[in-house]
């Protein structure tokens, strides 16, 4: 009998604000310990939190993108527990009245589309960080992160495989960056994915779940879930029981391990925070955000296919990040808006390949969109061939200037003068009489040989189309 996998994800997206959710402290990453933790963040007596207006607009953005209900009146509550990195003894969060209600996100796995439910997204503050091993028997606490604004996006248990879970996580990752509400940096913990995994017999009630935490790459999330599914099935099939617990993924050994379980069951005794009043969102607030919404990835993708005639695959790659899509659109616009496929190819093959090898992102590309467009324009007007363009591309990558500068300095201008090309063709044919005989005797592959010789004689600069045309005319005549 088979098992059905049930996965729900809780994603913590750190909002791209300047300051904390309830205080005017900076949230910049990497500062010296406790230099960005003020009296409010520390929960000093008499301090009053005041909500950062920026988190409201960013939450509305997410709600609109997920077609979700918007909490017109959302309420902050205190989630009570004791831990040294939580200075107040409670985390200010939302429970009953979250700022973002029910919504959906569409994913695609192996060509099959599926709609995943989003239960809610609520605003909350992050905790600080514990540093271990600085002094024996002691832990160090850095509260710079305490009070950093988070949106916790909770999905329905709608995913049925590790692949679906990762597709959802990736889609959400792409979305929050498009919306400009989260930088998506998983290494710095700006986008954290917790997976709730369980298995059951089809049709049976939900099985006991375990939670996988602190995994900072999509590849490892997939592997951790795969491992956890196999582990749970093995436990159940050998007559055991799943214990509800948090497990950590050990990437070196590709296993999940039980985290030392807390002595107490979770009993957070939520209650409304008396320091904060209900947050009201008006129609005007929503309209103002709607007016500034960027084009979303799915819409953009469909537009690339309809408007530019790109394939589903090409459109998917180019809209994979907002930066890449903007780069593509800049190149396309600067080359007159035609030849979308040519622009796409240069970006997806040569440029992406070079960026990958150098470990750079599109925003760090040594070749600007203007420079790449300048090069493509020279292909379009026949100044250079696609082959010469590769040399220009490499030179631009090495910072040798714009396409025009490189073409001039390296003398890469394509030969398009048919008289000059004819002379080259004549020369090559005259120098290779036996090959000409062979060709005329039926060895058509000799054509490639002649083209190669002619291109070589021209220093690679003859226009290949014209070479072919003139060569065929001469040989045929």
């Amino acid at each position, binding site marked *: 009998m088979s098992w059905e996998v049930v996965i729900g994800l809780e994603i913590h997206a750190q909002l791209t604000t300047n300051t904390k959710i309830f205080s005017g402290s900076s949230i910049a990453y990497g500062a010296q310990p*406790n230099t960005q933790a003020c009296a409010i963040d520390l929960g000093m007596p008499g301090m009053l939190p005041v909500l950062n207006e920026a988190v409201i607009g960013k939450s509305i953005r997410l709600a609109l993108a997920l077609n979700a209900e918007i909490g017109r009146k959302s309420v902050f509550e205190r989630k009570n527990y004791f831990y040294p990195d939580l200075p107040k003894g409670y985390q200010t969060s939302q429970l009953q009245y979250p700022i973002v209600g029910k919504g959906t996100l569409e994913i695609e796995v192996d060509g099959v589309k599926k709609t995943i439910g989003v239960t809610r997204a609520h605003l909350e503050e992050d905790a600080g960080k514990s540093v271990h091993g600085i002094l024996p028997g002691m832990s160090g606490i850095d509260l710079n992160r305490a009070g950093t604004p988070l949106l916790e996006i909770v999905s329905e248990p709608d995913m049925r495989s590790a692949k679906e879970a990762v597709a959802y996580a990736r889609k959400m990752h792409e979305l929050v960056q498009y919306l400009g509400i989260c930088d998506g940096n998983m290494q710095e913990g700006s986008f954290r994915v917790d997976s709730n995994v369980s298995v059951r017999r089809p049709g049976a009630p939900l099985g006991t779940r375990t939670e996988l935490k602190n995994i900072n790459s999509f590849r490892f999330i997939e592997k951790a879930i795969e491992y956890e599914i196999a582990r749970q099935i093995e436990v159940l099939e050998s007559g055991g029981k799943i214990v509800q617990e948090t497990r950590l993924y050990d990437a070196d050994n590709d296993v999940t391990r039980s985290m030392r379980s807390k002595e107490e069951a979770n009993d957070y005794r939520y209650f409304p925070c008396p320091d904060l009043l209900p947050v009201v969102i008006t129609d005007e607030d929503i309209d103002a955000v709607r007016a500034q919404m960027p084009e979303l990835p799915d819409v953009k993708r469909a537009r690339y296919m309809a408007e530019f005639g790109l394939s589903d695959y090409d459109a998917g790659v180019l809209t994979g990040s907002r930066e890449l899509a903007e780069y593509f659109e800049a190149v396309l616009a600067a080359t007159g808006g035609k030849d979308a496929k040519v622009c796409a190819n240069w970006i997806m093959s040569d440029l992406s390949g070079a960026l990958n090898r150098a470990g750079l992102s599109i925003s760090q590309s040594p070749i600007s969109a203007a420079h790449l467009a300048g090069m493509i324009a020279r292909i379009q007007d026949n100044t250079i061939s696609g082959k010469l363009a590769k040399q220009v591309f490499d030179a631009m990558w090495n910072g040798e200037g714009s396409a025009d500068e490189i073409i001039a300095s390296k003398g890469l201008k394509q030969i398009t003068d048919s008289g000059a090309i004819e002379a080259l063709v004549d020369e090559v044919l005259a120098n290779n009489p036996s090959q000409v005989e062979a060709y005329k005797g039926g060895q058509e592959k000799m054509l490639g040989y002649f083209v190669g010789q002619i291109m070589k004689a021209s220093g690679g600069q003859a226009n290949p189309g014209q070479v072919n045309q003139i060569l065929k005319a001469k040989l045929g005549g």
Partner: protein
Amino acid sequence: MSLGKTEVEYISRLAAIAVKDDEVGEVAAKLSNILDLFAQMEAADTQGVEPMAHPLDQVQRLRRDVISETDQHEKLQSVAPSTSEGLYLVPQVIE
């Protein structure tokens, strides 16, 4: 509603408040009184009444997203029992 020893111990552990054995009875009675009061309120008919999130009938004022706090960790840490290299020190929290 009356609370027993087990509940008092559980609640005191969650709240991290030490309750001595000879205080359990008194604490249990006090907490039970509070719960009785809630039970009384719960008995009221609240059909059609919007749940109240805050006793003040006002909405949250918002703050502009501008950095206004400066680094005051030396001052703030002067009242901490123990610090090292900018970190607050606490008894080790993991094994």
